[in-house]
């Protein structure tokens, strides 16, 4: 055990059906840092987050979060641990039947018996931190994608977690909203003294914000280090990913039968043969 590490993953194996997603993944996340987890689409980045938060159970290997092994926890223990974790879902996952204000107040109301004045105080502070105090009375459906994510961030922070997890926070945002989120990730991490995990495949944005990065491919950590170290890594795969090349170790073509024989062959390899 290393006190510097808020999340430790040892020899993680996980398969969905017969398709292995992780085979022997080792990864540590340091306290107080912004750690990026990158990888091509379909490498199971979101699955990894669900494993870290105990929504899924690993087939083999162990995960320790803030000093506690997940495998030994029952529902109550797991829920107690999750109170220390704030998670930002890709689409925000705001409760659509509640206003922005009530969404941020939701975890407070569910977990604590607080006087209304204190709830109001906390909610307005958190909304102010993400710049959306003025949108408190709006409904989630009235928000743009970037705003919804910021509200979700305010909600994730409402109970003052120690770890903030971001699932693809930059996807589908315009450059301004993207800049806002990038700034928020850094500022929340440093101002609140928490640890952040950012799952993303937006190499440029993540490089500006992350202290260290892991690149995951084929169920293992393919490379790790600071953004600079990754950019100059010798590995073909890392280069392809970091520089966005269409073809390389990750092929452009999805596996398929031979092109020529499929085109001119009389039905061989065709579906409706």
């Amino acid at each position, binding site marked *: 055990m290393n006190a510097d590490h808020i999340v430790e993953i040892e020899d993680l194996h996980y398969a969905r059906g017969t398709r292995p997603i992780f085979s022997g993944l080792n990864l540590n996340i340091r306290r107080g840092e912004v750690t990026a987890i990158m990888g091509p689409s379909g490498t199971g980045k979101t699955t990894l987050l669900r494993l870290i938060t105990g929504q899924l159970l690993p087939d083999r290997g162990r995960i320790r979060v803030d000093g506690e092994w997940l495998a030994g926890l029952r529902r109550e223990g797991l*829920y107690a641990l999750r*109170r220390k*974790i*704030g*998670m930002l879902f890709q*689409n925000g*996952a705001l409760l659509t039947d509640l206003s922005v204000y009530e969404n941020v107040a939701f975890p407070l109301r*569910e*977990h604590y018996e607080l006087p209304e004045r204190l709830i109001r105080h906390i909610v307005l502070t958190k909304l102010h931190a993400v710049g959306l105090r003025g949108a408190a009375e709006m409904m989630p459906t009235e928000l743009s994608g970037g705003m919804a994510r910021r509200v979700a961030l305010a909600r994730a922070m409402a109970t003052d977690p120690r770890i903030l997890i971001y699932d693809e926070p930059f996807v589908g945002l315009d450059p301004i909203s993207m800049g806002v989120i990038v700034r928020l990730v850094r500022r929340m991490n440093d101002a609140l003294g928490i640890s952040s995990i950012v799952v993303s495949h937006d190499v440029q944005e993540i490089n500006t914000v992350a202290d260290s990065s892991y690149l995951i491919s084929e169920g293992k950590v393919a490379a790790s280090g600071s953004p600079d170290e990754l950019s100059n890594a010798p590995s073909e795969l890392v280069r392809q990913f970091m520089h966005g090349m269409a073809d390389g170790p990750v092929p452009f073509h999805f596996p398929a039968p031979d092109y020529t024989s499929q085109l001119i062959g009389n039905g061989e390899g065709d579906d409706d043969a």
Partner: protein
Amino acid sequence: MRDLWEAFTGFLRTFGALQLFLLRLIVESPRVLMRPRLVSQQIFNAGALSLVLIMVCGFFVGAVIGLQGHSNLARFGSEDILGLFSALSLMKELGPVITALLFAGRAGTALASEIGLMRTTDQLSAMEMMAIDPVIRVATPRFLGGAISMPLLTAIFTSVGILGSWVVGVPLLGVDAGAFWSQMQAGVGMADVWEGILKSIVFGLAASLIAVWEGYNAIPTAEGVGRATTRTVVITAVVILVFDFMITAMAISLG
């Protein structure tokens, strides 16, 4: 043969999981009832919003019973028992069954698609991540809201239905008003009332459970939610008609 066996074990697994789910809903119910606002909101959603539908349908079902009853009873010169005839058929059969079917179509589909969409848009996962159990916060209040609404809706359907039958029978077709009500009063026993109430409770539990279950376990895609909604109506209809037969058979053999 192997497919058949797999379908059978698959059915057993689902059925077992459904029972565990029902058990959890029941176990969590007292805790949820301590927060009456959660439940009352769902009673409003499932019950109050179905009210107009239930009343309109109840009126016309009753009116048709009045017409059919009158024309058939008149052949034996016994139009006077039209009140009794309508009350018994509405109370014991048509009230609970049609209300449950309408409930599945109106409130059941709304529940299933709402919960299914919450699953699809990660709202349920988000709750789990906030250490809030969606079974307690989402599923149980909706289950209770539905289960409480159904008997009330059935009572309203039946009452409006009797009114509809009266409108057709007494002012329009000339059945004697005194005979209509007194035959009803004399002929309907407490056992008949209880049979209707028992059915409406059982149907309410079944319809709400199926709707919440289908929504909660919907595949998180547009197609999956659509399928969950359809299955809610279809499965509820079948289950209710089967239960209706079983409860009726039980009531008659005991009665």
